[in-house]
């Protein structure tokens, strides 16, 4: 892997999800230690053992997964870990004043004592950016800074990056939005499967070339054929709304159908999935599964009725990391019985599903913590196959999963649908949704704003629907 | 006049209390506080019952307050302070520590409250009355019994109470004094917290580890009782063991007398606190009370055994009570 940044230049890093962009950036910021290789800055070798080392070396990072602490205030977060840079510890008033100044430069109206956890995602992203640029650094790393931003915020950010360039700073910019890259960046480095593909000046290439470099093979090969025909409705929501949802939604999932939910970061995808799975109290509307009304039954009963949830955060919400594969896979199945039911023995079915999903492990008694991310994801999928779910609610099914495992997962999802089941899936990756699904919903600010067949849908059209127009004020918090 | 238990005698060098100090409090309506160590065993429970019963007998006592320190000296200091805040006329205290409560006791004494130290001593001159059992004698009586019974030579084990409590160290010092100059060898020593269950385990381990045990010195009756049962269970011949004036132990003694078991039962009377309460009333009334009393009770031997043992009462009863029989039946009836 090689990557070179020049002063006053913006260098883009692109690649598919899981290509290793964030990992590379984390290496540059001292969060992850490289196995081998060198980092050279101004002719000197850098040894980055700790995020502080990177900071001292003049590298500032705006992380993709925020490094903010929700229970600290905006001001505390902005100066966290570098209160010392400012000499003596600052008084509250000083801290507040300096924070306000920094925030106002990004046209943000947020009280400095505001708890970060009480801000919307867009505002949090802006705070993360403010924090990054507050640092006195010569290298700035932006990892997907615009994923959660509204268009006018993007404008503010771009102005800021232009200014940094004018000041002679080096900028690394990671984004999936190629249009942005072509307006902003001077060079593009393409990564794939954790490896360097090539580096080209922006002026000498075009979007198609970049995409080809990222994907490396035609996209179609990754996905299965779509459903030939869709059977009767399996899951139907009519004006359904959970406590955490901003708006009621209407949606259907048919037999054999995979329905995708597209949208920008944190537009209510997770709230929708959790509400449908029953982990949020119903506020209104109705929900039916195979014609049976399940609006008022709790999550456990919905699961028993045939709904399964694949949560986004595998490690936090999906897996029992210290238990073995069999225990993880059988958990939902066992959960259906009473407390005093006998547990199933390992059983053919479990082994069968392990083989079907091609889980790479010595045996079913291997602890899941020994598995790679992709295999762990297969275990979570296997759980619902084993439990005999009819409708899968899949959050980000291929997050941080390599291309081979992705293919396997797509294949399994399609096969699952073909057996007379239905899937509702969210993903940040539009190409994935287009390739995988039969029909696509676009969610914006908690409401479903578009419902189109996946066949013929383009990233561009989806993005257009997903982005808030400046008139409807989709992100109202940022005044 | 208040009369104290006949088992008490003025200690050597004791003087009459100068009751003029307490004249201002002589209004015939006293508040008396008892600061107790803890509530964790049957000896303390009987002590509490007797003290309360005794307090009930005095019309002069308007209010009788009890606190429990749960073995925590800091809490006992707080308890005494809270009593002072309530305006007690006398404090009867069973100290958790001979030194830790001294500052607060001195404060109490200086403010004109009668301070009665009972059952365990505290290192201060500022006490109105002390009522103490001679714990060194308790241990020595047992030690001398063993020396006699073993003809001055043999291997013994020692069952001790709670580490770091003066009653325990005093008793053991008495016993060790008795063994001095003899050929008695202590082959095993263990703290069993004066508790039956712990003593049982300790005795089991020691008995099996030492094929030869000629005698057992014990700091309390429940522990001896446990050890007798262990020996019986292991099928070993009973050896002389020292005991204590407790009904459970007497029961075991009676039962095993035929097997040649012999013992001695020193007393550590439960009524000391009750007499402390009485002494407090006496001092406040202006009666003749001495500054220090010693329990003059001699240990019980096999001779008194039959008359003292109460088969109608359970093991928790401590022999030599001041409680009336109906109260005893209520507390310890089988």
């Amino acid at each position, binding site marked *: 892997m090689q990557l070179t940044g020049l002063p006053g230049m913006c260098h883009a890093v692109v690649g598919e999800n899981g290509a290793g962009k964030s990992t590379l950036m984390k290496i540059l910021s001292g969060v992850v230690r490289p196995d081998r290789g060198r980092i050279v800055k101004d002719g000197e070798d850098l040894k980055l053992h700790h995020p502080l080392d990177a900071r001292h070396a003049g590298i500032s990072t705006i992380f993709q997964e925020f490094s903010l602490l929700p229970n600290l205030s905006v001001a505390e977060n902005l100066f966290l870990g570098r209160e010392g840079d400012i000499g003596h510890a600052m008084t509250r008033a000083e801290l507040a004043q300096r924070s306000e100044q920094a925030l106002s430069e990004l046209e943000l109206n947020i009280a400095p004592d505001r708890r970060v956890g009480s801000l919307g995602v867009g505002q949090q992203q802006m705070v993360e950016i403010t924090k990054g640029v507050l640092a006195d650094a010569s290298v700035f790393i932006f990892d997907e800074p615009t994923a959660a931003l509204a268009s006018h915020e993007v404008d503010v950010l771009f102005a800021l990056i232009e200014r940094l360039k004018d000041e002679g700073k080096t900028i690394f910019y990671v984004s999936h939005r190629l249009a942005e890259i072509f307006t902003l960046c001077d060079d593009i480095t393409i990564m794939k499967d954790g490896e360097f593909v090539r580096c080209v000046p922006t002026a000498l290439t075009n979007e198609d070339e970049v995409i080809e470099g990222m994907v490396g093979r035609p996209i179609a090969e990754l996905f299965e054929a779509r459903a030939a025909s869709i059977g009767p409705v399996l899951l139907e929501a009519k004006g359904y709304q959970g406590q955490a949802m901003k708006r009621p939604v209407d949606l259907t999932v048919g037999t054999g159908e995979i329905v995708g939910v597209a949208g920008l970061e944190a537009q209510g995808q997770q709230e929708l999935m959790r509400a449908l*799975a029953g*982990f949020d109290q119903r506020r209104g509307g109705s929900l039916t599964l195979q014609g049976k009304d399940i609006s008022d039954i709790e*999550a*456990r009963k919905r*699961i*028993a009725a045939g709904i399964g949830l694949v949560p986004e955060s595998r490690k*936090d*919400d*999906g*897996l*029992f990391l*210290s*238990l073995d594969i069999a*225990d993880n896979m059988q*958990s*939902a199945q*066992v*959960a*259906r*019985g*009473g*407390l*005093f*039911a*006998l*547990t199933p023995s390992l059983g053919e079915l479990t082994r069968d599903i392990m083989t079907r999903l091609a889980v790479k492990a010595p045996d079913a*008694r291997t*602890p899941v913590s020994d598995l790679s991310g992709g295999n762990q994801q297969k275990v979570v999928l296997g759980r619902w196959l084993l439990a005999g779910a009819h409708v899968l609610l899949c959050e980000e099914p291929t997050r941080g999963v390599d291309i081979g495992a992705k293919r396997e997962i797509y294949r399994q999802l399609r096969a699952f649908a073909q057996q007379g089941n239905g899937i509702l899936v969210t993903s940040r990756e539009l190409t994935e949704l287009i390739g995988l699904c039969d029909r696509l919903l676009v969610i914006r600010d908690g409401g479903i704003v578009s419902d189109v067949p996946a066949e013929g849908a383009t990233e561009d059209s989806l993005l257009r629907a997903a982005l808030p127009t400046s008139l409807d004020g989709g992100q109202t918090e940022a005044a | 006049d208040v009369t104290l238990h006949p088992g008490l005698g003025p200690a050597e060098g004791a003087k009459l209390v100068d009751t003029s100090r307490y004249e201002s409090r002589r209004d015939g309506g006293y508040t008396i506080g008892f600061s107790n160590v803890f*509530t*964790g*065993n*049957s000896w303390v*429970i009987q002590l*509490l*019952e007797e003290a309360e019963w005794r307090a009930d007998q005095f019309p002069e006592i308007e209010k009788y307050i009890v606190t429990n320190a749960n073995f925590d000296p800091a809490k006992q200091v707080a308890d005494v302070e809270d009593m002072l805040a309530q305006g007690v006329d006398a404090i009867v205290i069973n100290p958790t520590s001979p030194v830790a409560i001294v500052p607060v006791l001195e404060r109490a004494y200086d403010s004109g409250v009668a301070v009665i130290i009972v059952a365990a001593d505290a290192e201060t001159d500022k006490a109105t009355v002390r009522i103490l059992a001679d714990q060194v004698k308790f241990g020595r009586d047992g030690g001398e019994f063993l020396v006699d019974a073993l003809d001055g030579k043999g291997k013994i084990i020692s069952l001790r109470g709670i*580490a770091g409590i003066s009653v325990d160290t005093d008793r053991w010092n008495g016993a060790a004094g008795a063994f001095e100059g003899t050929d008695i060898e202590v082959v*095993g*020593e*263990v*703290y069993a917290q004066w*508790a*039956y*269950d712990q003593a*049982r*385990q*300790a005795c*089991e*381990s*020691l008995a*099996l*580890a030492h094929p030869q045990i000629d005698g057992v010195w014990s700091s309390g009756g429940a522990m001896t009782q446990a050890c007798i049962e262990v020996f019986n269970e*292991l099928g070993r011949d009973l050896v002389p063991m020292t005991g204590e004036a407790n009904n*459970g132990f007497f029961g075991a003694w009676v039962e095993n007398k035929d097997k040649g078991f012999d013992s001695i039962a020193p007393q550590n009377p439960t009524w000391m606190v009750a007499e402390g309460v009485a002494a407090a009333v006496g001092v406040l009334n202006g009666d003749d009370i001495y500054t220090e009393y010693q329990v003059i009770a001699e240990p019980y031997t096999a001779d008194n055994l039959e008359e003292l043992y109460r088969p109608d009462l*359970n*093991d*928790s009863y401590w022999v030599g009570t001041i409680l009336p029989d109906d109260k005893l039946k209520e*507390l*310890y*009836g*089988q």
Partner: protein
Amino acid sequence: MTRSLRNLPPAFWGLIAVGVLAAFTQPQFLSLPFLMILLRQAASIGIVALGQTFVVANRSLDLSVGANIAFVNLILAHAMWSGYHPFVAIVVALAAGTFIGFANGVLVTKLRASAVVVTLGTAAIITGIGFLYTGGAPGSSISDLVKWLGRGRVGIVPVAGLVWLGFAIAAFIIMRRLALGRFIYAAGDNPFAALFSGLPVDRTLLASHTLCGFFAASGGVLLSGLIGVGSINLGADYVLSSITAVILGGAVFGGGAGGAVGTVLGTALLVTVLNLLTVFGVGEPGKLIMQGLVIAAAAIIYQQGRRNG
């Protein structure tokens, strides 16, 4: 093979070490009568520790087992049972202890307050109720049936040891063969994942606390039988001992480790070490230091094994 070897609880290796030590220094320690005595000593604490295993594996803790045992003892020794079959007293005592565990479970799941604080609170309440119920009197003697359970023998085997074996088998079945056991490990390992898999997370925690109460009460019955009389502060030291045995048995809070076998071995190790120390004439301070070192060593070694694994 290496995996299962690595998964053996620290107590297993500890027992081997202690056995070798005893064989060289105190050979009579390994004689059958002595082992039978160890077995009886270990039985009551062993059952309490088995109960503690459920809650610890479920990422919780019960600090009220000591008060529970004392309460069971008060009930068993109360004069009010003189007219009834001794069986009645046992059933009532077990029911009371189970209810204490159930109450802990309800409070921990419903109030979402820390189990440390909640079970300390219930311990204080139970102790107070016990004193009020008996007026502080230690109660009369305990029925022969209970005494037989605590002290009796079948041949040379102590009844208490057999009872312990029974409870260990029951605990093993619950933990390894019933859905409840799976739920306990799963919810202990990751309560959120458990929720999203549809496990009855709260009911599982409630059940493990209830079971802990029942096991503690059962240990209390055996201990009361061994003592044979009402005793006020009975079992106070069982809180610490039961947790120690569970840790030696390889359980950590949550984390899917530990189990009935581990706890049985942990109890055996604890009781053996304490006895050996008594035999060696080590005083109270030495025992405390030894106990601390053993706990720390077990926890550290086990944790390193898991990390490298």
